[in-house]
């Protein structure tokens, strides 16, 4: 039994460890080179006698990813929170609440490229100049984050015991105050989990950005300009024959992996905290 358990753990861990190993061994040299986090990619180059290749950096992709996540979070988190609060705290079994809940479910099944296509088509009608920008890319990513934030917030709110809501009602505390300052606070670690997971999901998306943010290896020139992202850089550089660009792609993959890993671990910790906190009543 112990052997079997050990084997299972190994099977589960093996892909994760081999990906990490691959990323570190192929991307490591680029990551530790100077200006990796701030510079722009160097000219394409493959080592041959008498030539040493520069790596340059992925500064525009890191900045771009941060900008995209900022736009996406600013849109998706407040809307997702509001939707979940409405569904759980105010909706009851009203048709509107069920409709929003169902919409979140459907949205979570929308392929990410379709989210990008939708934003592309939408902005093409409105303002073609802004199609390729951090705003547009962030908006597309927000579509992918929204159902995750809504669903996990919904679940976090549902784990808050109803007895706590009743206690607040019986004290004559106004509904909105008890929702914001008692229920939401109690659910906060669970909500944080969802937010972090959704950010991790958005950080790794490339498809919706191909049609929107577009990519820009020169630098981050503003939210209304074509913007790069880590997955876009990987998408563009990984198929290239140049050794230094390949290393940059793996370096970007390593950074992305670490980002997602940190976000997942943080969300796990937040969830544990929530479970501990709500235990011990009664």
């Amino acid at each position: 039994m112990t052997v079997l358990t050990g084997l299972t753990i190994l099977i589960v861990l093996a892909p994760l460890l081999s990906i990490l190993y691959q990323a570190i061994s192929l991307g490591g040299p680029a990551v530790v080179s100077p200006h990796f986090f701030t510079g722009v990619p160097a000219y394409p180059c493959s080592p041959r006698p008498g030539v040493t290749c520069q790596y340059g950096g992925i500064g525009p992709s890191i900045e771009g990813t941060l900008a995209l996540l900022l736009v996406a979070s600013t849109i998706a988190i407040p809307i997702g929170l509001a939707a979940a609060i409405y569904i759980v705290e105010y909706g009851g079994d009203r048709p509107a609440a069920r409709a929003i809940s169902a919409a979140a479910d459907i949205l979570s099944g929308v392929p990410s490229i379709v989210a990008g296509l939708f934003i592309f088509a939408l902005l093409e009608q409105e303002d073609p100049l802004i199609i390729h920008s951090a705003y547009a890319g962030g908006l597309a990513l927000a579509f992918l984050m929204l159902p995750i934030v809504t669903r996990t917030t919904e679940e976090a709110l549902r784990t808050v015991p109803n007895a706590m809501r009743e206690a607040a009602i019986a004290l004559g505390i106004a509904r909105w105050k008890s929702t914001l300052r008692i229920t939401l606070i109690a659910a906060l670690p669970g909500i944080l989990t969802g937010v972090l997971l959704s950010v991790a999901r958005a950080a790794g998306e490339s498809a919706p950005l191909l049609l929107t943010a577009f990519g820009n290896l020169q630098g981050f020139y503003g939210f209304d300009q074509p913007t790069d992202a880590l997955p876009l850089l990987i998408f563009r550089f990984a198929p290239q024959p140049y050794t230094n660009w390949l290393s940059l792609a793996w370096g970007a993959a390593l950074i992305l992996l670490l980002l997602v890993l940190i976000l997942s671990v943080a969300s796990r910790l937040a969830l544990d905290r929530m479970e501990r906190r709500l235990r011990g009543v009664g």
Partner: protein
Amino acid sequence: MAKMSTVGLSATYGSGPVIQEVSLDFQDRSVTAIIGPSGCGKSTLIRCLNRMHETVPKARVTGQVLLDGNNIYDQDPTQVRRRIGMVFQRPNPFATMTIYDNVAASLRFNGRHSRAQTDDVVLKSLQAAALWDEVKDKLFKPATSLSGGQQQRLCIARALAAQPEVLLMDEPCSALDPISTAKIEDLIFGLKREYCVIIVTHNMQQAARVADRTAFLYLGKLVEYNDTKEMFERPKEKLTEAYVSGRFG
């Protein structure tokens, strides 16, 4: 005049009526017990008295509940609930708050009070709930660090801090051990000097011990309402007699 009374009170959860045409008077500075077998509607009845019943989807109330002669169903429910405190079956402290913040909750959320004022109310409420001596050195520890019995007294302190006129208790001891139960019963004796206390219990001995008057509810209808001693020793109705002598329930 009675502090509180119900006039032809009926309630439902959407299907059939759970309580029907109940008319009762509750005297100030005394304890009234509502007894009856499980499912007779006693919890529903007490939840109609502070308009908690209507917070359940599809629940409906008809009839009147008078507080000092005015129908609470014509008033703002949150204002009504500040005058009528409630303690629930299971202790339900705010899990994310400290002991102090739990007691201070009604003051913090319902208007502005100075720190000194809040301190004073917290002290008096915890003393009134016979919990002060046990928690005075750990006021800023989480409420969940207390035992079940202490949590229930904390909930009583929290209700008292809102300075209500009526205190509703819905089987406040059903989740507690005998020692904690005895403490809460002692507490009820003290509370009736200042409040109109209404307690729901499935425990007849408890009703006999703490209540001045007792109402017997069966299948949603009021069967008998009398002085507790009278009711237990000389019940007028056959059904009451059968119940208090333990032949059913």
